Every structure is written in C-alpha cells, then in structure tokens.
C-alpha cells in the first residue's frame, strides 16, 4: 500500500511540474521557426515530452504491476490517457477539453525511439532462438502458426463476407472489391505483436513450454505475413486495376528480395558484431544504441524488414558466437526497459480514440470473432503439434495482442489502395480493431503465462 501511495504521489508531483512549466513558459506561436538555426517549433521542449513519457509511463507501469497486471498495460494506458486524442473526444467538438502534455508533433519526433525499440526487440527475440529450441518446437510451432492463421483468415473473412450488407464500408463496394476486402482484412488480422510478446516475456522472465512455443510461432507468423501480405497486395492491385505495375513476377521478386535481403543483411550484421565484440568489452551501451539505429536506418534505406534484420542478427550472434554475445545481450536487456516504456507509451498515445468511437460496433464484432478464431485455431494447432496440456490450453493468449507490425501492415494496405474510397474507411476499422487487441492482449498473455506457471519475476 505504501508503495502504491509513493507512486501516486510521485505521479502527482510530475503532473504538477508539467503544469507549472506550462504556466510560466511564454506560449509558442503555432507555426514558424525560432532561434539561430531556425529551430522548428515542433522540437522545442521535446525533451520534456520524452521525460514525461519515461517517468510517467514507468510510474504507471509500476502501479499497474502492483495490481498483478503487466507493466506494459500501464505504459499503454498512460499513452492513451495523456495522448493527444482523449482531450479531443472529451471536448465539446470545437475545442479539446484540456491541452495534452504529449503533443502529436513531439510524439512524431520520438518515433526515432520506436525504430530503436523494434531493432532491440528483434535482436532479443533472435538471441532467444537457440537452434536446440527450434528443433524442439519446430513441429508444434508450424502447426500452431498455420492453424491459427487459417482459422483467423476463415473466421474473420467469412464473418465479414456474411455480414457485408450491413457493415460499412463493405456495404458500398462491388462484389469483387467486397471479396478482396474480406480476404484482406482477414489476412491482416492474422498478425500479432512480436513487440508485446517479447516485452511481456522479458518483464515476467518467463521460462517454459509456452514461452518457447510463443517465441517460435511469433517469428514464424512474421515470415508468413511478409509472404502473405506481399502476395495479397499484388493480387489486389491486379484484380482492382490499381494504377502502376504490379505483375506476379514483380510480387515474387519483391517477396524474395525482402525476405532473403533482410535475413542476409541481418546475418552479416550479426557476424560483424561478433567480430567487433572481440575488441570491445566496456560501455557496450553505445555500441548497442548505434547498432539499433544502424539496423533501423539500413532497413529503411534498403526497404528491408527491420524486425527480420534484427532477428537474423541476434540469431547468428547467439548461435555462432555465444561467448562473445553474452555480455552484449545483457546490455540489450538493460536498455530494453527505457526503450520499451517510450515505445509502448507512444503506441498508446497514437491510439486514435476518435476513430475507435466512430466504428466501435464493427471493430468490437471483428475483434470478438478474431478472439474466438485465435482461441480455436491456436488450441487446435497446439493439439495437432503435440503440445503439453497446460500450454495447449493457454497458447491462444499469446496471439491476441496486436500493435506496431499490424498497424504498419494496415498503413501499407491503405496507401496501396488509396485511390478507392473504401480504403480509408477500412483503415479506420483496422486501426480500431488493433487498438482493442492492443489493450486487452498484454493482460491476457500474462494470465496465460501465470496459469502455465512460467512467470519467474
């Protein structure tokens, strides 16, 4: 109880400080530049936003943890409550009820930390993938991955098709586009969040059959989704006659370069890092941060998947040079907490509650059908893969959370079909469903790990 009161008081002091600074500081004009280097107004005080995200998110995470929930949920809730969207929907429609401490312009600047977070999460996931583990769980992981994917695609796609006469935007499009849209949303709903899975596993220090299965399935799903979405977008472009060239050849080529390129570049980075770590044993934080940003930038420049690049780098390092990589991954673990707080609080702040409010009935129905499909698909897959009874019962909880990867896929889908009116509407629905899964996912997964008695922290 004393612990909770301390946290609440600390949070109140933090809020007080934020208010005081706002009162004393002269208001900045809405647009324009200041200072000797024409500093963009958007970057003035970004540090304050970052500090508020870190301290506020962390305090709320600790508070939530004291109630037996994952800290991650605290970070997300902090972002949602103090982000830019809640004041808008609680306002009277013309002006927000209060001015947020996390302005969108600042959060946009902090997307840089997201890239670092994705790289570190991928490196951690790769480092957990020992070859012996892969051999042990390969069959079960493949069964769960395929069964879950098929169940979600069939159930969500089927539900949408059956209810399409009553659900916007499906009720306004032609039969071809309607079928495509059902399959597309079904496919995008297969994704789950590697970031959430890794963060919850790290936080709980979970060890056991469910943890092993979850890791392997999450990565297998990521590979499957890269192939599936690339193929889906290429098919959609061809069927719906979207402007631009998108032949089957180019789609296959795109998948091959994306997959092999990401894995190849990641493996090369892993090998190079092992070499570097022979000479450097102190202050690894700098090397880790440099590597994280390096992965993010290189992936962006070469149009690769940063998650796969990081995974391959971590996998190669940990399996080929285990001696050199031990202290490196300990350092990654130390940096994960601050990076995760910013990443998930920022993710929470980007949950557009306004959009969720508009399409909440459709979103809730799709989320419900997806939840049922994940439960059925994962449980069946676990049974077929010969998973032990207890993890088999709770395996589905790992595949409910959705976050960054799902949002990125939804964004790619929307930008590909932007010329159609339904694309924007479908995007809103997708974002709303992802937001629901983002909120309910982490506590469910923690519950699953707890029921399997795999939590060590």
């Amino acid at each position, binding site marked *: 109880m*004393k*612990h909770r009161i*301390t946290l609440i008081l*600390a949070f109140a*002091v*933090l809020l007080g*400080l934020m208010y*005081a*600074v706002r009162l*004393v*500081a*002269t208001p900045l004009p809405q647009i324009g530049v200041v*200072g*000797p*280097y*024409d*500093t*963009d107004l958007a*970057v*003035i*005080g*970004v*540090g*304050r*936003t*970052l*500090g*508020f995200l*870190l*301290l506020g998110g*962390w*305090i709320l995470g*600790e508070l939530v943890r004291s109630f037996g929930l994952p800290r991650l949920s605290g970070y997300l809730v902090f972002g949602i409550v103090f982000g830019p969207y809640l004041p808008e929907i609680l306002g009277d429609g013309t002006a927000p009820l209060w001015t947020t401490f996390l302005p969108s312009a600042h959060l*946009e*600047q902090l997307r*840089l930390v997201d*890239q670092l977070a994705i790289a570190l999460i991928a490196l951690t996931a790769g480092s957990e993938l020992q070859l012996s583990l892969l051999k042990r769980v390969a069959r079960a992981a493949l069964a769960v991955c395929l069964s879950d994917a098929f169940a979600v695609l069939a159930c969500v796609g089927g539900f949408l098709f059956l209810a399409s006469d009553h659900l916007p935007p499906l009720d306004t499009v032609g039969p071809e586009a309607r079928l495509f849209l059902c399959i597309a949303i079904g496919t995008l709903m297969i994704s789950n969040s590697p970031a959430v899975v890794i963060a919850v596993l790290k936080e709980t220090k979970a060890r056991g059959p469910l943890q092993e299965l979850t890791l392997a399935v999450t990565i297998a799903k990521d590979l499957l989704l890269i192939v599936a979405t690339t193929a889906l977008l290429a098919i959609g472009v061809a069927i719906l006659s979207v402007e631009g060239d998108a032949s089957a050849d180019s789609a296959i080529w795109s998948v091959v370069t994306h997959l092999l390129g990401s894995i190849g570049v990641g493996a090369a980075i892993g090998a190079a890092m092992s070499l*570097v770590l022979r*000479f*450097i044993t*102190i*202050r690894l934080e*700098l*090397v880790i*941060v*440099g590597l994280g*940003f*390096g992965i*993010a*930038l*290189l992936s*962006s*420049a070469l149009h690769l998947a940063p998650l796969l690049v990081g995974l391959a780098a971590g996998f190669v390092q940990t399996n080929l040079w285990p001696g050199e990589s031990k202290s490196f991954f300990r350092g990654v*673990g*130390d*940096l*994960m*907490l*601050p990076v995760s*707080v910013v990443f998930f609080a920022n993710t929470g702040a980007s949950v557009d509650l306004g959009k969720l409010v508009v399409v909440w009935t459709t979103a809730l129905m799709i989320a419900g059908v997806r939840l049922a499909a994940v439960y059925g698909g994962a449980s069946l897959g676990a049974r077929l893969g010969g998973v032990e009874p207890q993890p088999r019962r709770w395996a589905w909880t790992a595949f409910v959370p959705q976050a960054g990867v799902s949002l990125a896929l939804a964004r790619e889908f929307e930008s590909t079909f932007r010329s159609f009116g339904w694309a924007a509407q479908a995007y809103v629905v997708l974002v709303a469903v992802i937001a629901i899964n983002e909120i309910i996912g982490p506590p469910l997964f923690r519950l699953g790990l707890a029921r399997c008695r795999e939590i060590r922290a």
Partner: protein
Amino acid sequence: MSALLVAASGPSFTDHWRVIIAVAIVVGVATLSLTHTSSRIRRHRALALFLGSGWIAIALGVAIGPSGLRLIDARTLMDARPLAMLALTWIGLIVGLQLRRAVIAAIPSAVWRTIAFDVLATMAIATVGWLALRAWIDDARWLPFAVTAAAGGFLGWSPETRSFGLRSGNGSARTFVQATAGLAGVALILAVAFADLLAPTIEGDGLRSQGFVAAGTALGLLAALGTALGARVLLVRVQRHQPETLVVLLGVIALLSGVADRLDLSPLLIGAACGATIANCHGPSMRDLETTIARAEPALATVVFVMTGVLLHGTHVGIALVVAAAIVAHRLLVKPALVRAALGPAAAEIDREIPLRGVTLREAPLALAVACSIVLEHGGGSTTSLAALAIAAAAGVILLPATVRAAHTEPAP
C-alpha cells in the same frame, strides 16, 4: 547520432545514405575509442595529451558538418536540438555531482583564493570586451552571450593531469589542479545563468522580460531539486536494478532538458543543480545513480567535441583568431602570475610537481560545452566565440610540451 532525427522523418534515398555515412563515421570513431588498444594508447603520456583534448572528434565534426562534407546540414542541426540539450543537461549533472558538501568542506583555502582571483580577472576581461564590442556592434541581443562564451576560454583549466606524468598519491598538485578546474566549471555555469538574467536589461530584449527569466530560473531550479529528490524516493521504493536506474535517470535528464529548453534556460545550470542535489542525497540508490551518470562522461565528451566541429560554421575567422590569441596570451602570461599570487608560498611546491604555466595553458573542455549551449540557444556571434575556444584549445595542446620543457629549464623563483 543527431543525424538520425532527419532519417526518421523520411528524407530522400540520397539523404538516407548521407545520414547513414555520417552516423557510421561518428559511431565508428566512438566504437574505436572503446577498444582495448585505444585504452592502452590513452594511458601513454604524450598521446593522452593529444587524444584527450578531443581534436580528432572536433575535426570529425568539421568534416561531416556544414563546413565540410555537409553530411549534417542546417536542418539536421535544427532537428538535433533536443539531443544536444539532453547531452548538455547530462554534462551539467556530472559537473553538479562534484558539489558534495563533504568535498566542498575539504577544499583548501588556496583553491578558493585561486578561484576568486580567476573569476575576478575573467569578469574584468569580459566587461572590457563587452564594452568594446558594444561600441562597435549596434544591434546584438546575442552580444552578452557571445562574450560569456568567450569568457569561458579565460576561466579555469583542464582537469587532465596524466599528460604531466603524475601518478596517484603524488602530493597536493593533482588535487589542486582538479579541484580548481571543477569549481571553475561551476563558476562558468553560474556565469551563463547570470548573463541570462542580465541580458534582457542591458540589451533591451523585447522578447524576454527579466521577470520571466527570473521566474523561469526559479522554476527550473525547483524542478531540478524536485526531480532529484523524486528520483531518490522512487529508486528507494522500487527494486534497485540497472534498468530501473536507467529509466529514472534518462527520464530526469530528458525532463530537465525539455524544461530548460521551454523556459529558455541553460541546460547546464539545471543539470548542475540536479547533480548537486543527487550528490548530497544519502543512500546506495543515489550512489548507483551517480555511477550511471558518470559512466557516460567519455561518450558525452565525444558528443560535445563533434558538436563543436559541426557548429563551427559561419564564423568570423579573423575575430576568432584575435580572441584565441588573447586567451592563449592570458593563459600563458597573466594566469600563472595570478595563481602564484593566490597561492603564495605554496605555489613553489605545486610548481615543483606540475609546471603552473602548463596547467594554466590548457582551456577547460567544459568551456566548449558551455559555448555549444550558447550557440544553440542564441547563435549570432557566439559561433565566433566557439571557434576562438576551439583554436585556443588546439593552441594549448600544441604549446604545452614546449611550455613544460621551458618551465623545467627555468631557474626556480
């Protein structure tokens, strides 16, 4: 690292590669500085002098900055401002950590006298410089800040003693050099705050009233005190592990840097106030926090040196050379006499261990950090002051071996 902000905001393909090359160079050099070979090299007396002065990083900054290959341009600089503020706040914290009550109480009176003489001399030089420049330059809100930045070159000296060949336990000379350098750093940070308070009145700055600056400074100092005490409470309550300490530390530094930025205050001052509070709090969690803060010192030094190189753009070379020559002349001719006057008979004892002229010759690296913060905040002629400090720092390193040799051959006073 600063260049990453641009990459994140979606530049063209060529921009991406420019940024990747710039980041690779900076991270590559920083990584090289962490190797065992590099550590061995830095222990060498002569090489410590050259590498410790940061000229490689400054040259790197010039090479990748707007004056060189333009891998980092004005827009990158603009976007990198939060990171620069963060680094400067962190440096302020490191300076503030020196202000532990027990340490301050143990400082000999000779050090206080030296500091007083040094501060008074620097203030006299700065006042004369400001009056002369004011008669010459018409409209310049940045003038007090440019003069303060340049004054940093006259105040204090480098705390580095390895290049003099001293070993630990080698008498009071090392303590004298390092304690005076540390206190001079604090005095320099306070001087910037003083200039901040004074500037609106003396230059008739219509944008900032003195009341606003005073209220902002008070709030900033209160925030520094509050966050340090808050960090203590939180770290005592939660389990004390490295990740938690890192979250609290990064949160405090980011928050204070943002507060300083928003209230138009020096991040070094706010950081130093927080560091002093942390240093005077008891408990193992605070000592963990101190260790984590201090661990970043080499990396931060590299960042400041690279930042100096990048910011050396659009300077008035002629004026910079004149100011640099004045700094070197003061350090070589006037300062040793001032220190001897302050120390009295103890000067001969210290001079036997370390030649005083060698000590006073080298500028404090903190002066560059202070100048960088002033350039980022106020620009204008401050860039020329920064250039003068960089030139004077280089001159100090070049002249040191000859100065030390000459001091050894001089007859004892």
